[in-house]
């Protein structure tokens, strides 16, 4: 079974090795800057509808998480530390430790992305911040859960970098469509009750993905 203490140890290990190399943080941060500036250049002085902008925000978030989280498990394969981890702890502890770390990482970067987005793009005015914050939190949870299990799959494959978005996109599409819709509601200034349906989808998506990952992760990890 899962031991909270060991999950926390794995999380600490991830955090420490990330702070040493800062690979994911740097890559994610630079990716956000790059994509945001492309968006800004292409908008120019045009008036863009908030509906389009709420979609663009999630495109930025999706692709930056794809570039930053792909190495979650690949790094273990490359450094040859998979066996050590297998000996030290149960596979599910590893999975939940990594999931926790990815979630924290995505939270930090989504906050940066959203703050920059709101500051830099004048047409993007959020009218209902409650819906927006809840969407962002639940969206990050779902994104972290699906990208962690896909990252585990691709760590065993040959063409790791390109395969990651290809495998993730169909899995993440229901999540992306829902968060884009919820963000649109937040921008339009809808009431909180109108967005409850979206939140239910997001919560159940997270629960379903984590449950399936819980059931199948052992097979990937021991392969």
């Amino acid at each position, binding site marked *: 079974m899962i031991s909270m203490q060991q999950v926390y140890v794995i999380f600490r290990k991830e955090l420490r090795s990330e702070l040493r190399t800062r690979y994911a943080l740097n890559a994610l941060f630079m990716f956000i800057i790059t994509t945001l500036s492309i968006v800004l250049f292409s908008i120019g002085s045009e008036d863009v509808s908030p509906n389009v902008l709420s979609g663009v925000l999630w495109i930025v978030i999706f692709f930056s998480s794809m570039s930053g989280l792909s190495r979650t498990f690949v790094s273990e394969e490359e450094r040859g530390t998979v066996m050590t981890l297998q000996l030290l702890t149960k596979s599910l502890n590893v999975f939940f430790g990594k999931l926790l770390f990815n979630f924290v990482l995505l939270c930090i970067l989504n906050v940066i992305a959203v703050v920059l987005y709101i500051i830099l793009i004048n047409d993007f005015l959020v009218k209902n911040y409650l819906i927006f914050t809840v969407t962002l939190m639940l969206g990050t949870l779902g994104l972290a859960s*699906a990208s962690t*299990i*896909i990252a585990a*799959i691709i760590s*065993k*494959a*040959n*063409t790791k970098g390109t*395969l990651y978005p*290809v*495998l993730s*996109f*169909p*899995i993440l*599409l*229901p999540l992306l*469509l*829902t968060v884009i*819709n919820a963000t649109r509601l937040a921008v339009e200034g809808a009431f909180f009750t109108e967005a409850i*349906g*979206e939140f239910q*989808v997001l919560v*159940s*998506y997270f629960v*379903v*993905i984590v449950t*399936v*990952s819980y059931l*199948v992760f052992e*097979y*990937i990890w021991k*392969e």
Partner: protein
Amino acid sequence: MFLKLLLGIWLTVVIIVAFAFPVVANPQAWYEYPIITGLEEKARILFFHVPMSWTTVVAFLVAMMYGIKYLKSKNIDDDIKSVASAGLGLLFCILATVTGSIWAKFNWGSFWNWDPRETSIFILLLIYGAYFALRSALEDESKRATLSAVYAIIAGVTVPFFIFVMPRIMASLHPEPIINTEGKVHMNATMLTVFISSLAGFTALYVWMLRMRIRLGRLEYHQLSQGA
């Protein structure tokens, strides 16, 4: 051999009957189809398009089922069955997309307009594509079998979300929900018989092709393991 012949004759009759019987306003004779408002002559697509979509979904479920079985048994034969079914699913998925798209051009005026049904079949295509991309990136047999089975399971559980998500994003123009208030296509007995026969024919075709592909997969596997 006999069954194969029977299947050939069966599907030939279905195809001829689907195109040859006239569509009339008030069907009297046993060989006449009724007019479905908004579809008219174009209603004939449902004899082919619907069974293709049905086979696509069945093939995916079969592939997923054998994937789960493989994870339990670790028997490479289950993986051969799984990939055989997924390959056929991809074939039928492309056929259903193309026929649906051609029909959409004549009924809705454009080949592609992101109707919920079009979006769902597109996602199935993406999943099948990703599944085969993953397989080609894995060389080791047992790795390939395990990871593609896991991916099929993860993809399989996310598909039902589209049933909840899609109607929130856009309204559907697909015949079934818009023709009348009950949301049903009214078929007469003739049409229903041809439709069910076609469905049965396509399912039998799928089973026959699946068995052939499994045999082929086994032969290839043994050839590879002996050749090395």
